[in-house]
């Protein structure tokens, strides 16, 4: 009876999951981010005034200074107003309900709600409840679509266009179980023709890999030579709830990207990390600062891609 019940409807402008985007929209967002990147290098006075209306509020139930600042920079660069509301304790027993809080923001008249929550699917629920567009800034272990879009932008710049991504192999290394970055990236990069796989200790790997459409390896050294891109994931100790408790030292021995492993790789290898890094765990200091590590570029891409996503949320595809 999988087709009982109503079809899921996402409001136009909202970005809740990578699956909400058509491939044309992905191409459009990448193209637009590219234009914005050039625009940002121009003097402020030459930027179009049409950008300067609209209000964005960040509703964050989880701490994330970096993502919040990235959205804030994107909003301000577009001339939009930006406010943030941080809710320390999302427990419904200790405050107003999720629905009431989001309805309040809607009633305050914001045009876009940028939402981060520890609960999977919360942006989908909130999008049903309120009229402003909702942009998912990370929901639990499910999705982080703007991060994935930014990463796709970084990759296509590095490889020379979206078409060049076809057939490239990318390995996500580490804590896939708890990674919304991996889930969104796997969905997006697969749709762009890349061949994703996941590598790490068995209890942090998917039990149902076909759900993600990936191959699984438990042995980094045996597959690392086949990869074009190595995407290092942060071990999310704060989300470990079960026997997934892990010894950072033994993890590092098998999966850390360090100078020794890097020396055995091709010169063209690309390394990525969504930050913040646990230095000495998934990556060592030398690799973190090496020229093949694109983490800094990922942050800059985040900025322009979030501008493109906010424009889309406001119903503006360009100038």
């Amino acid at each position, binding site marked *: 009876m999988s087709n009982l019940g109503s079809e899921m409807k996402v409001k136009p402008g909202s970005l809740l999951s990578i699956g909400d985007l058509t491939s044309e929209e992905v191409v459009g967002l990448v193209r637009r981010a590219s234009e914005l990147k050039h625009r940002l290098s121009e003097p402020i006075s030459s930027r179009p005034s049409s950008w300067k209306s609209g209000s964005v509020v960040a509703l964050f139930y989880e701490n994330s200074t970096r993502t919040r600042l990235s959205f804030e920079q994107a909003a301000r660069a577009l001339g939009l107003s930006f406010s943030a509301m941080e809710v320390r304790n999302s427990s*419904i027993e200790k405050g107003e309900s999720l*629905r009431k809080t989001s309805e309040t923001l809607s009633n305050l008249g914001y045009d876009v709600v940028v939402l981060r929550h520890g609960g999977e*699917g919360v942006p989908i629920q909130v999008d049903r409840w309120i009229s402003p567009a909702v942009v998912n800034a990370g929901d639990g*272990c499910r999705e982080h679509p703007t991060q994935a879009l930014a990463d796709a932008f970084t990759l296509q710049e590095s490889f020379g266009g979206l078409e060049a991504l076809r057939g490239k192999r990318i390995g996500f290394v580490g804590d896939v179980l708890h990674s919304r970055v991996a889930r969104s990236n796997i969905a997006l990069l697969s749709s762009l023709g890349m061949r994703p796989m996941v590598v790490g200790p068995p209890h942090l790997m998917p039990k149902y890999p076909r759900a993600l459409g990936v191959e699984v390896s438990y042995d980094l050294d045996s597959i690392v030579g086949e990869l074009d891109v190595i995407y290092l994931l942060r071990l999310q100790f704060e989300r470990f*709830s079960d026997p997934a408790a892990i010894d950072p030292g033994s993890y590092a021995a098998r999966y850390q990207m360090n100078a020794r492993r890097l020396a055995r790789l091709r010169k063209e290898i690309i390394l990525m990390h969504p930050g913040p890094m646990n230095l000495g765990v998934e990556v060592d200091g030398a690799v973190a600062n090496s020229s093949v590590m694109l983490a800094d570029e990922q942050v800059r891409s985040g900025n322009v891609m979030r501008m493109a996503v906010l424009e889309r949320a406001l119903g503006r595809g360009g100038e």
Partner: protein
Amino acid sequence: MSKEALVLRGGLVYSRRGFELSDIVVEEGKITSYGRDVPAPENARVLDIGGLCVGPSFADLHCHLRYPGDSEAEDVVSGAYAGLLGGYGLLLAMPNTLPAIDRVSRVAEVREIYAEAPIAVLQAACVTMERAGERLVDMAALAHAGVEFFTDDGSPVANPRVMLEALRYSAILGVTISQHSEDGDLSGNGVVNEGVFSEALGLPSMPEVAESAIVARDIELLRASGGRLHEMHLSARESLNLVRAARGEGLAVTSEVTPHHLLWNDSQLTHFDTNFKVNPPIRSEGTRMALVQALLGGEFDAVATDHAPHSGWRKEASFREAPFGLIGLQSAFSATFSALIRQSENYVQLRGSAQVDPFVGEIGDFAPHLGRLRGLWTVFRYMSYSPRDLLGVPRDIGVGTPADLVVVDPLATVTQSTQEIASHAKNSPYKGVQLEGAVIGNLVGGEIRSWQGQIVEKESF
């Protein structure tokens, strides 16, 4: 009790023998005449129910009426009205209330309220004091007070030593221990079924083995104790195998399945509608089909609702934080019937379900709808006859039997709206969903108490 005689004319009647076209004459709360074209008593009201089907009203082995303690979600009257509209005449209320029903005095208190309800309500008692899982309740005193079912439902009796003692008492007292089978370490912080959908959605999950591991353990305990065990809301394929094997060797184990586990699969999770958050979780399509197959094959003793009201604001939370549970009394018939007939239509050859047509007489205009009539036969067996047997109030339809009857339309479709929900809480996953089959009427003690979705006040129909 109505003095006026009532004749139900032209319905297809489901008795224990099978189904046949027959009139039913009701006088003084009992069936006084039964058969084709029976004469109506003088001054009788004659109701033409041609095209409709009649059987003993349904009985639910598993519902939460939330009395005492959570009148915002449900109370005895609202819950009983939901039952009335759902075709129920008999409910077994779960004891996980605030405070929990763990002593004779509390059973006596709730029975006073139940006496005012429009349908019969029985009370189950806890297995352990305050459902804390540590000290057994005074099972002997409660059994002498008439309690026949003991359960800590909402959570399992986790400690095997406590469970073994409870089963030993059940053997001595002739009562039943109903178990919510869940290994808390295996289910962990899971909120949905473990499978491709939990993987894709990143939701913390619980595997089927979290249920079947406790079913296996309890069957071992039952073998040692000789008691009576009822498996609540089974939802794992391996649980079915374990129960089948245990019954095969003659152990006194019975089991139930819920309408929502028969109808839905975990692909619904992509909508993030917290009304689908329930424990045990909605399973995969493969397991769902196995559950339907098991019901058709006679492996369950009952379809039970696990009707679990939660007020709206509690469900308007993230999937992780929202409470487990959905309401099901009003939709149970249509949900179960839909699951059965859709499966039959999809899979003509039903493995393990002996398709002996249970009609004993003429079926007239119903002849083109044999598939639906067979489905309805299964519904009456497992929503009415069998659970009534387990509850100690067996029923049949014939001269002299009490007129607690449900009238259903097997050809109608229904789509529930929020306004139609009688429960205070509206946490129904069936809202806006088209289902097959409709409850048309409910007779309690010979009186029509609901008709066409409306409650009928006493003596006013």
